[in-house]
């Protein structure tokens, strides 16, 4: 067994969150540059601001977006890793708390969704998804997720008879309904199969894939291409004002499901597709 310390988790989470808030992954930057080249008029103007914004965020160490999100953390915890300092979730929250304080990030969490809606003032609790894996390492992927795009996401339990067409229609309908609200150009993460909650997790994981990297299964890769083409013909465009670039990519993840089910989840990601990962 290999021991890891509370302090290591705290520092890793803190650094990942602070870095993710001010810098975009290279693949996202490249996709935005390509979009800039193919747009015209005001749509091009908007993309030039988005690209300029990345430089300013990095130079000034000011968050790319004022919505520094809920901190969504995927953890791949090796079964040979031992943690002896209590509840590991507490350490993840402490890392988030410090990042918010030291990185001047926004406190965007309320304690109770319906009644009090009182701001917790430190952006905790974060959302942690644990997965046990082989080995003696802990991999942490931190993705700050803003509400503008999260609010436009949707999940539907289709009938198996609706099949491919049902899945396509639901993805297109979700993107159409979202319009300019989720800050296009977006990344569309689709989770198909599993069950109710599994499809949502798959959709969120799909968003984190390197932009434009196709699914390994050729049938799903083809579906990704078809959906991307169709979405980019909707003329929603950057910030919803029209144009050829509504989405930078469509990523689909799938899993086996019940004979009676066809769950589909669509997680919409804004152009500020922030995520960082590290291993302890």
């Amino acid at each position, binding site marked *: 067994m290999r021991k890891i310390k509370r302090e290591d988790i705290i520092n890793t989470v803190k650094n990942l969150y602070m870095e993710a808030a001010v810098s975009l992954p290279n693949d996202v930057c490249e996709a935005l540059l390509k979009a800039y080249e193919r747009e015209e008029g005001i749509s091009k103007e908007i993309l030039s601001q988005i690209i*300029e914004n990345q430089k300013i965020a990095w130079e000034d160490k000011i*968050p790319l977006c*004022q919505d520094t999100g809920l901190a969504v953390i995927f953890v791949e915890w090796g079964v040979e890793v031992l943690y002896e300092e209590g509840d590991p979730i507490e350490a993840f929250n402490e890392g988030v708390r410090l990042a918010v304080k030291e990185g*001047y990030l*926004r406190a965007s969490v309320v304690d109770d969704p319906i009644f009090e809606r009182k*701001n917790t003032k430190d952006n905790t609790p974060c959302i942690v998804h644990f997965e046990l894996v082989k080995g003696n390492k802990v991999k942490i992927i931190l993705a700050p997720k803003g509400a503008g795009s999260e609010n436009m996401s949707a999940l539907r339990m289709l009938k198996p008879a609706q099949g491919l067409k049902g899945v396509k229609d639901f993805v297109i309908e979700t993107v159409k309904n979202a319009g300019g609200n989720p800050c296009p150009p977006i990344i569309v993460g689709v989770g198909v199969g599993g069950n109710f909650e599994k499809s949502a997790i798959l959709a969120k994981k799909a968003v984190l894939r390197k932009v434009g990297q196709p699914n390994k299964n050729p049938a799903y890769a083809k579906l990704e291409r078809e959906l991307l083409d169709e979405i980019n013909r909707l003329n929603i465009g950057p*910030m919803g004002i029209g144009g050829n670039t509504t989405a930078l990519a469509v990523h689909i993840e799938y899993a086996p499901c019940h004979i009676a089910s066809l769950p589909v989840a669509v997680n919409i990601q*804004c152009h500020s597709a922030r995520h960082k990962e590290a291993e302890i």
Partner: protein
Amino acid sequence: MKRIKIETPLTDETIEKLKAGDIVLINGYVYTARDAAHKKLIEMINNGELLPFDLKGQIIYYVGPTPAPPGKVIGSAGPTTSSRMDSYTPLLLSLGVKGMIGKGGRSSEVIEAIKKYKAVYFLATGGAGALLSRHIISAEEIAFSELGPESIKKLLLKDFPAIVAIDSQGGNIFS
């Protein structure tokens, strides 16, 4: 592309000239308010209380900025989704608010109110909060500090870039 400089508070004369699709540079004071601040403002109006600022001719910016780091007046400060404020907007327009800055489309009720009260809705680039923060030269919290990032702040803008999304004749960049 041509950019039109405008000053706040907005006059009818300025508003009448603005057409959907125009790029503007906004100068002067604007007031921030998001969901929670709107809810409180409407409650105060319904109770006949004195509001934290005079609504006449003003622009409301839908933003909840990140905290200002040392040496800066404000943190990242881009627009939030305007449609969440749709149910509150017609009343505020009827009381003299002349402009809003946000992102995304508006409801048909808001579009009608924009025409009726001769107002304008500006689109700023969502997710460009770092860039937009450079166009905010002062920030002062004036109400609802308990709301944290959702408090009402008075911002002084300098050449703040935005697009006329819905004009006073109902011209709409989203349709």
